[in-house]
């Protein structure tokens, strides 16, 4: 745990805690209507006392929007990662533990899915289902699944070959108990680290999808959507893009740093 007391660990920890806090508290403390409230007389205003981070092309307060957008972006990212873990964990764990024909078939499928770039897969699924928050979440979750399944499978394979698994088999442990007692606890650190890093990627993916108009739809506030909206006004009002961009950067940076330190702490191979 001492690793969290390094500068990198502390920054990561603080950033992640801060963002989680904002994501949870912003919609509770702020009136959601504020996010879409337009101050028609104050369009594209630079940061000022009235609007701390300025306003966008429709005169909406960027500070409020970026705080409310945190909820949307984080919700999509978290649920998408949960979906990919729920799909990828059993797939990878069973494939790695069972080996043989099961493994061959499952991994051939996963490898084929991996040939589709995650963003392309997410975009296509989102376009097929019709872009909205719910479908964007599903699309990202499904697109990330093969990556996670691959990593978990590799880890499960490594653990399945450990002598303690063989010893447990010799001691009469059933397959189900083996997965629960020996395989899962030993791959969990890697799953947690990968989920943290996937969270960072999911934030980026949401931003990318929304930027292309195939993710979150207006007038909802999401960071990707805000960056897209700022495109045509950047020269006149760079803050309209810089504010949501900074929000994405700080979140992803925090998650990556947190994930790195978590890996050092949890992953037995890094010791």
């Amino acid at each position, binding site marked *: 745990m001492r690793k969290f007391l390094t500068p990198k660990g502390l920054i990561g920890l603080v950033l992640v805690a801060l963002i989680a806090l904002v994501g949870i508290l912003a919609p509770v403390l702020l009136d959601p209507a504020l996010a879409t409230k337009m101050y028609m007389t104050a369009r594209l205003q630079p940061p000022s006392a009235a609007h701390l981070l300025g306003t966008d092309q429709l005169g909406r307060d960027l500070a409020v929007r970026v705080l409310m957008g945190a909820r949307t972006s984080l919700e999509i990212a978290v649920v998408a990662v949960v979906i990919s873990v729920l799909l990828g964990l059993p797939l990878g764990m069973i494939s790695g533990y069972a080996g043989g024909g099961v493994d061959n078939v499952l991994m051939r499928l996963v490898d084929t899915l991996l040939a589709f770039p995650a963003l392309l897969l997410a975009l296509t699924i989102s376009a097929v289902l019709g872009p909205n928050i719910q479908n964007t979440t599903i699309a990202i979750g499904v697109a990330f699944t093969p990556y996670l399944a691959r990593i978990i499978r590799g880890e499960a394979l490594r653990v399945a070959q450990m*002598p303690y698994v063989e*010893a447990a088999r*010799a001691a*009469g*442990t059933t397959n189900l108990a083996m997965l629960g007692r020996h395989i899962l*606890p030993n791959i969990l650190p890697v799953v947690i680290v990968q989920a943290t890093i996937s969270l960072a990627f999911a934030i980026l993916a949401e931003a990318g999808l929304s930027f292309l108009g195939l993710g979150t739809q207006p007038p909802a506030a999401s960071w990707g959507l805000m960056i897209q909206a700022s495109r045509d006004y950047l020269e006149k009002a760079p803050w309209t893009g810089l504010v949501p961009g900074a929000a994405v950067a700080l979140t992803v940076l925090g998650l990556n740093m947190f994930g790195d330190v978590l890996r050092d702490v949890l992953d037995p191979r890094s010791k």
Partner: protein
Amino acid sequence: MTNALVSIDKLRVEFSTDSGTVIGVEDISFAIRPGETVCVVGESGSGKSVTSLSLMRLVEFGGGRITSGVLNFKRPDGSLLNVATADADLMQAIRGNEIGMIFQEPMTSLNPVFTIERQLTDGLRRHKGLSADAARGRALDLLRAVRIPEPERRLGQYPHELSGGMRQRVVIAMAIACEPQLLIADEPTTALDVTIQAEILALINRLKRERGMAVLFITHDMAVVAQMADRVVVMYRGRIVETGTVTEIFENPRQDYTKALLAAVPKLGEMAGTTRPEKMRLIGDDNPATLRAAQTATPRQPQVLLEVRNLTTRFPVKGGVLRRTVAQVHAVEDVSFELNVGETLALVGESGCGKSSCGRSILRLIEPASGQINIGGRDIRALNDHDLRRARADMQMVFQDPFASLNPYMRLREQVSEPLRNFGLATGADLQDRVAQLFDRVRLPREFMTRFPHELSGGQRQRVAIARALAVNPKLIVADEAVSALDVSVQAQVLNLMMDLQADLGLSYLFISHDMAVVERVAHHVGVMYLGRIVEIGPRAAVMENPQHSYTRSLLSAVPVADPRNRRFRDDLSFKPIVSPIHPLGHRPAPSIYTQVAPGHLVLTA
């Protein structure tokens, strides 16, 4: 000390770690004279490697720092150089040129993507300024000097095309390329099989003699020390315990630690004339009652527990798009033996001989291809999955690596109780009592029950593994190199524990090991394996004192004996290389046919 090649005075090395500064070694002083072999011996963590790396100033690359002391090295021009303070450029000129070094792992000591020629010649070209052609010629001479067959062909090959023994010869050739005054050998044979170890030790001895090189030999193995050393430095926890000539150290050790270390080393041949196993006489454990424990079990009418007939196990070699089997590893080939109740059968052999596969096949942790396995009259191969799970309560296994054989995320209590819970043998308070008793049995404090594996030492973990195996009251324990990864003093304690348990509980052991001296100590019967087959099997005394098969003989002749008056590796040795056990599909090997040379003593004839 003026004629010394190297004189080390009060060396102190520190390492900076996450948790502050740690002392690697301190107050190290000894000398190496021209042309002599000094062995530095110690168990893991004794600082023996730190000392040799300091002499090369390589310790800095591992995070260490020489904080005080003098390391004087007499250069070929007669000048004295304090290596501890020499600048980096000068050290580069000395490394590989005036001091050569070889390391433990022949498999990783050579750069996998460069040819042998490149790796042999780059030192020569750097230090001696040879042209490419001249260096190539010199490289050929060196390969001949280390007795590598077909040296011309080797130059163009990559490391992975060479066997482990050959790679270590190449590493030695690299180290002596510039004719150094001193060769440092850091555990050069630890990763090698015993016959290859013998060849390498003999090679180092010959090169030392021919070239008048001094050798600093780092090892944990007292038997190797007895074979190689002129003088010995014994180290413990970063300090020197004792120094002396090899005969002084072995015959008249002054310090308790040295005495304890020597007591824990089994000496091949010391059991001659006895028939039954005998516990190790450890210092501080000289209560005559416990010493005799292993012998008190009264010899009964032998009763067969395990009977193995014509056991064959093969592993598929997969290839192609559809991952079809294209060839087979004949891991176990027509193996038959019996193991009596309360006795130990040792399976010995070198790596890849099939001894581990044989043990796993008996528990059906891997599926045998054919043959019969009977334990207590039950046909193991005929069982379905459900009954096999039940039957495994009679047979348990202890593995080699104490760090990998326990689940790192489970408390020790849970791990030891798991077999009991699996078979529903105990619940609640009864379960807790049983586990506590098991910890008592393997002489671990009960407060260890709530700990996790990483809080224990290697020996303690191995005791937990034994407790886990004992939980279901098995009749048979397959011990697969169960003490091989342990330091020698810990190894002796665990061996004694195993022999006590056998005497108390009437356990049978299938003791799988590469270490002939340990086997001599613990086994009632010995089976020697080679290429998947048992080539010779019989009572321990018969096999070890009167070996009949040529492989058994060469194996026994290659074992270093912990006795400096019985030196075996003076002249070049060359054993037959082991051939591959991989055969194409459909290959039908001949059955194993044995001749009985004495009652129960069988030798493979075909």
